[in-house]
C-alpha cells in the first residue's frame, strides 16, 4: 500500500485535468462525480496506508532528482510518517466531504467545472505539501495552495472587490513565503541539505538556543504567519471569505491554513532547540487568538465571524506549539478541521437557503426551517466552545494545561479567549437560528433545507465533532491518549528535551472546571443578551460605542497597513518614475546628448565662412605647433 503513495496526489491531479479540460464538454454530474471520486480514491489509499504503516521511522520514497546544482541537491521524494498520514487523512477525508457538499452547493453556478478543477488542484498541492520529504517539495505545495487559494477566492472575479481579496491573499502569503524561502537557504547553508531525514538528526546534536537555529526558526515562522494567518499577516483570511463557502471550509479553515502548524510540528526539533522563537510563537499565537476573538464579537457577516474564529483558533494552535505542546496543537488541528469545516458548511447551507444573504442581522429563527443544518451547527458550536465531551474540549484543554504549566498569565488570557469564543459562537447561533426572521419576504419564501448532498457531509462532520475528541482522551479521564502515542515517533526528538506535563490531577481538574465554567458563563451571557433581550446588532449607518467601533472595524489593521505600506510604496513608485527615472537617470543620459548638441551649437560659430579668418587660424595653428615642438625639444 505504501508503494502506492504516489497515487494519492495523482488522483486529484487527474481530476483537475479532467474537470479543467472537460469543463465545457461534460455535464455537471460527471464533473462533480469525477472530482469527488478522485479525492475519495486518495482517501481510500490514505486509509490503507494508515492501517498498514507501523514503522517508527519515516519512510522516504524517491522519484527523481528535481534540482541538482553544485552543493544543492533537491530530490523529488515523499516522506511518510505518522504526521503526514494524519494530515493525509484530514485533507482527503474532509476534502471528500467538501467535494460532495460542493456538488450540491455549486450546482447553480456557471463555473461548476472550473470550481472543481481548482478544488482538485488544491487537494493535489496540499497533498504535496504534507508528503514532501524536504522543505523545497513542501514549498511547492506551500505556494501551490496559495495559488489555488488565489484562484478560488477570486472565483467570482467579475466582482472587483473579490479579485482584490484574492490578490491580497496571494501577496500576504508571499510575504511569508519569502521568509520561508530564506529560511530554506539558511537550512541549506547550515545543514547542507533540505531533506528532513538529514536535517533533524543533525539538529539533535546542536545546542539549545543556537543563533542559527533561532534565525532559521524565526524565518520559518514568518512563513507560517503568512499561510496560517497570524499577526501581523492575518488580514487576508477574513477577506478570503469572498470565495465560495466550501472553499472557506476546505482551504481557509480545515487544511491550508493549518499548513503553518504542520510545518512547525514537522520541524519540531528545530523549534524545540530555539526557546526564543518558541516564546515569540506563543505570544504571537495568543495575541492573534485574542485580537481575532475580539473582532469576531461584533461582526455581522456570518462567514466573517467564522473567519475570525478560525484566525483565533489558529492562534491557539500556535500558542500550543509555542509552549511545546506539539501533540496538543496537532490534536487541535484535527478537531478544528472537523468542527470548523462543519460550521462553514453549515453557514454555507444557511447562505444557500437565504438566497446568498450573509448578514446575520437579516436572519433569525431559522432553526425550524433548517433543522439538520441547525442541529449539526449546534454540535459544531458546542465543540468549538470547548464543552465536554465534544471534540474541542479535549484539544483545547490539552493546550491550555500546557500553557498553564509554562506561564500562568498566558493561561489566564487563553481562558479569556476561550470565553470570548463561546460568546461569539453562540451569538452567531442565536442571531441565526433563534428569534424572528428578519429578512425580506422573498427570502422567507425561498427558505429550505439543503439537499442530501449537502446535509450528509454536515451530519458526518457533526458526528466527528462530537466524538473526534476521544482519540486523545487524557489520562485524567482514564484514557490513554491514543493520539499522543501514535505521534510519539514524530515528536521523539523534542520529547526528550521538553518536560512532560507534570500537573497533579487536582490542578488539572481545577483548570478544567475554571475554563468550562467560564465558557458556560459566556454562553449564558450571550443567551441573556441575544435571546432574552432579543438584541440585534445595529445597522452600519447607526452609531456604535467607541470600543464596538474598533472591534467592528477590525482594529483598523487594513487601514493601518494601507497607510504605512501600500500608500508609501505607491508614492515611492510615482516618485521613482517621475523624479529619479525620468528627471534623474534619464535626465543624465539625455543630458549627455543635449550637452553635445549645445556644445556643437557653440563651436560651429567658429566657422565664420571668412576665408581670411580660416587662413589666419591655420597660420596661428602652425605657429602654435612649431612653438610647442621647439619648447618640447
Amino acid at each position, binding site marked *: 500500500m505504501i508503494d502506492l503513495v504516489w497515487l494519492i496526489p495523482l488522483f486529484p491531479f487527474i481530476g483537475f485535468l479532467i474537470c479543467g479540460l472537460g469543463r465545457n464538454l461534460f455535464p455537471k454530474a460527471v464533473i462533480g462525480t469525477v472530482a469527488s471520486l478522485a479525492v475519495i480514491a486518495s482517501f481510500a489509499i490514505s486509509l490503507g496506508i494508515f492501517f498498514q504503516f507501523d514503522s517508527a521511522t519515516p519512510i522516504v520514497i524517491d522519484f527523481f532528482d528535481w534540482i541538482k*546544482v553544485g552543493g544543492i541537491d533537491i530530490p523529488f521524494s515523499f516522506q511518510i510518517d505518522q504526521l503526514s498520514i494524519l494530515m493525509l487523512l484530514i485533507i482527503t477525508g474532509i476534502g471528500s466531504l467538501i467535494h460532495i457538499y460542493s456538488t450540491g452547493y455549486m450546482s447553480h453556478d456557471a463555473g461548476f467545472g472550473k470550481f472543481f478543477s481548482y478544488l482538485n488542484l488544491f487537494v493535489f498541492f496540499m497533498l504535496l505539501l504534507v508528503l514532501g520529504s524536504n522543505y523545497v517539495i513542501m514549498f511547492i505545495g506551500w505556494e501551490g495552495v496559495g495559488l489555488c487559494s488565489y484562484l478560488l477566492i477570486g472565483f467570482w472575479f467579475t466582482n472587483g472587490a473579490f479579485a482584490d481579496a484574492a490578490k491580497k491573499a496571494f501577496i500576504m502569503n508571499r510575504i511569508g513565503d519569502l521568509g520561508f524561502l530564506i529560511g530554506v537557504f539558511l537550512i541549506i547553508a547550515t545543514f547542507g541539505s533540505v531533506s528532513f531525514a538529514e536535517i533533524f538528526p543533525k539538529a539533535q546534536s546542536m545546542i539549545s538556543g543556537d543563533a542559527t537555529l533561532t534565525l532559521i526558526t524565526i524565518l520559518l515562522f514568518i512563513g507560517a504567519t503568512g499561510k496560517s494567518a497570524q499577526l501581523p499577516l492575518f488580514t487576508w483570511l477574513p477577506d478570503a471569505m469572498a470565495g465560495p463557502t466550501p472553499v472557506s471550509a476546505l482551504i481557509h479553515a480545515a487544511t491550508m491554513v493549518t499548513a503553518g502548524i504542520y510545518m512547525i510540528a514537522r520541524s519540531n526539533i528545530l523549534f524545540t532547540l530555539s526557546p526564543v522563537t518558541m516564546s515569540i510563537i506563543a505570544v504571537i499565537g495568543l495575541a492573534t487568538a485574542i485580537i481575532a476573538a475580539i473582532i469576531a464579537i461584533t461582526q455581522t457577516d456570518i462567514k466573517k465571524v467564522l473567519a475570525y474564529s478560525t484566525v483565533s483558533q489558529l492562534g491557539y494552535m500556535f500558542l500550543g506549539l509555542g509552549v511545546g505542546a506539539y501533540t496538543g496543537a496537532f490534536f487541535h488541528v484535527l478537531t478544528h478541521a472537523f468542527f470548523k469545516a462543519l460550521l462553514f458548511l453549515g453557514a454555507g447551507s444557511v447562505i444557500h437557503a437565504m438566497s446568498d444573504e450573509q448578514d446575520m442581522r437579516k436572519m433569525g429563527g431559522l432553526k425550524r426551517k433548517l433543522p439538520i443544518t441547525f442541529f449539526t451547527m449546534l454540535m459544531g458550536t458546542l465543540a468549538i466552545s470547548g464543552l465536554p465531551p465534544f471534540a474541542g474540549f479535549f484539544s483545547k484543554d490539552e493546550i491550555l494545561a500546557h500553557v498553564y504549566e509554562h506561564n500562568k498569565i498566558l493561561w489566564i488570557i487563553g481562558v479569556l479567549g476561550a470565553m470570548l469564543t463561546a460568546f461569539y459562537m453562540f451569538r452567531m447561533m442565536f442571531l441565526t437560528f433563534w428569534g424572528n426572521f428578519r429578512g425580506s419576504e422573498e427570502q422567507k419564501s425561498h427558505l429550505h433545507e439543503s439537499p442530501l448532498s449537502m446535509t450528509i457531509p454536515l451530519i458526518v462532520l457533526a458526528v466527528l465533532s462530537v466524538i473526534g475528541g476521544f482519540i486523545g482522551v487524557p489520562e485524567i479521564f482514564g484514557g490513554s491518549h491514543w493520539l499522543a502515542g501514535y505521534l510519539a515517533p514524530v515528536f521523539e526528538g523534542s520529547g526528550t528535551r521538553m518536560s512532560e506535563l507534570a500537573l497533579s490531577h487536582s490542578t488539572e481538574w481545577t483548570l478544567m472546571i475554571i475554563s468550562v465554567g467560564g465558557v458556560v458563563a459566556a454562553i449564558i451571557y450571550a443567551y441573556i443578551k441575544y435571546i432574552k433581550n432579543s438584541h440585534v446588532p445595529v445597522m452600519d449607518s447607526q452609531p456604535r460605542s467607541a470600543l464596538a467601533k474598533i472591534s467592528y472595524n477590525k482594529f483598523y489593521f487594513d487601514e493601518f497597513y494601507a497607510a504605512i505600506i501600500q500608500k508609501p510604496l505607491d508614492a515611492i513608485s510615482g516618485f521613482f518614475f517621475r523624479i529619479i527615472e525620468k528627471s534623474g537617470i534619464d535626465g543624465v543620459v539625455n543630458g549627455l546628448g543635449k550637452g553635445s548638441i549645445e556644445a556643437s551649437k557653440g563651436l560651429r560659430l567658429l566657422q565664420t565662412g571668412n576665408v581670411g579668418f580660416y587662413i589666419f587660424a591655420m597660420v596661428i595653428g602652425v605657429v602654435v605647433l612649431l612653438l610647442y615642438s621647439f619648447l618640447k625639444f
Partner: protein
Amino acid sequence: MNLLFLLFFPLVGSLACLLNNRAAKQIALVSSLITLASAIVLLCNFTPDASRQFVVDYPWISQFGIHFKAGIDGISMIMVLLTTGLIPLIILSSFNRNFNNSSALYALVLFMQFGLLIVFTALDGFLFYVGWEIALIPIYFICAIWGGADRIRVNMKFFIYTFAGSLFMLLGIIYLHLQTPGNTYDIDAFYSLNLDAASQAWLFWCFFIAFAIKMPIFPFHTWQPDTYTTAPTMGTMLLAGIMLKMGIYGVIRWLIPIVPIGFMEWKQLAIILSIIGIVYASIIAFKQKEIKRLVAYSSIAHVGLIAAGIFAWNAAGVQGAMIQMLNHGINVVGLFFAMDIIINRLNTQDSSLMGGIAKIAPKFAIALLIVILGTVALPLTNGFIGEFLLLNAVYQYQIWFAAIAGLTIIFGAVYMLRMYKHVMQGELNELTSSFKDIKGTEVLVMGIICALIIVIGVYPKPILNISAAAVDTLIAQVNNKLAF
C-alpha cells in the same frame, strides 16, 4: 551537421525572404524551423561535458590574427537553443498580423538571428564583436521602421546608447589583442593572459559597461522601457527574449573569466547595482498603467536578479542564470505576446481602461495566468527553478542581499497580479466587451509557451545537465586563476 550550417542558414533564409514578399512569413518560419532542427541535431550529438564541440576555425583576416572561430560548449548550447527556439515562436506570433513591406521585416529578423548565433558561439574576440554589432543593426531597423509613436527619437537613443557601450568593449578587446603573445583574438589566449590588477580593473569597466547597457543593469537601463514600449511586438520579443541575454552571456564568457581580478575588485558594486535594479524597477512597475511598459520594468527586475546571481559567482548562481535566461526568454515572449493581443484588440495600452476579459476569453485568461505564474516564480513553473537557484546564490554571498533581492518574490506578485486584475478581472466595460478569445496560431504560440513553462518547472534536469559541466569548469578555471 556542421556548426557552419547552423550559423549561416539564417542568412540564407533572410535572403529568401527578401526575394518573395508574399510568402515572406512562411519562408521565415520554415527557415527558422530548419535552424531549430539543426540546433536540435547538434544537441543530440552534444556530449554534456565541459569541452567545446563542433569547433570551426578558419583564418579570416590573418594579417591581424583574426579567425572565424566558433564552437559550442554547454553554456553556448543553452543560448543557441534559446535563440533557435524562440525565433520560430516570435515569427509564429506575428502570423495574423500584416506589416508593410513584410519581406524586409522577416529578412531582418533572420539576419538578427545570424548575428545572435555568432555572438553565442564565437570563440574569437573580433568575431564576437562583429556578431554583437550585426545583431544591433537589424533590431534598430525593425524598431525604427515598424515601431509606434516617437520611434525615431527613442531608437536613436537606444542605438547610440548601446553602440557607445560596445565601443568601450571594442577598446578592451583591442587592448587584450595587443597583450596576447601572438597578437590574436583567440578567447583562450585572452583567458591565459596574466594582467596586473590595475589594467584588469579598467578592462572590467570596458566590458561591464557594454554588457550592463545591453542587459540592462541599473542605472544603465533608461533606454529600455521606452524602446520596449515603442518597438513592434516582434522587436520587443527579440530584444527582451534574446538580445538582452547577449549581455548576460557576455558577462559569463567574456568578462569574468578574462579579468577575474578586476571582477573581484568590483564584484560588490556590481551586485549592489543589480539588486538596486530589482527593487527599483519593481517599485516603478507598481504604478505603470501602460502594460508593455510594466512588462519592460518587470524585465529589468528579473534581469537584475540574474545578474546578481552571476556576480555572486558560484555554481548555483551561474547555473541558475543559465536556466533563468531560457525561462526569462520564454516568459517574456509569452507576456509580450499577450500584451500584443490585448493592445491589438483594444487599441490601447492603458490597463485602467480594461477589465473583465477573463469572463469572455477564458483560454486567453488561463494562458496569461500561467505565464504570469512563471514570471512570479511559482513552484512547478520554470521561473521558480531559476529564481530559487539565483536567490540561493545571492544568499551564499550575503544573507541581507538575498533578503532584499527576494523582495522580487513579493513585488513581482504585486505588480503582475495588479495588472492581471485590471486587465482580466472585474466587470466588462464597453471597450473590452467585444474582446475575442485567442484562436489559431495564437492558441498554438500560447500553448507552446505554457507547456514549456510547466515542463521546465517540473523537470528541469535535462536543461541543467547541458550546462552543468561547462559551468563547473568555468568557475574552477576562474578560481584557479584567482588563486595565483
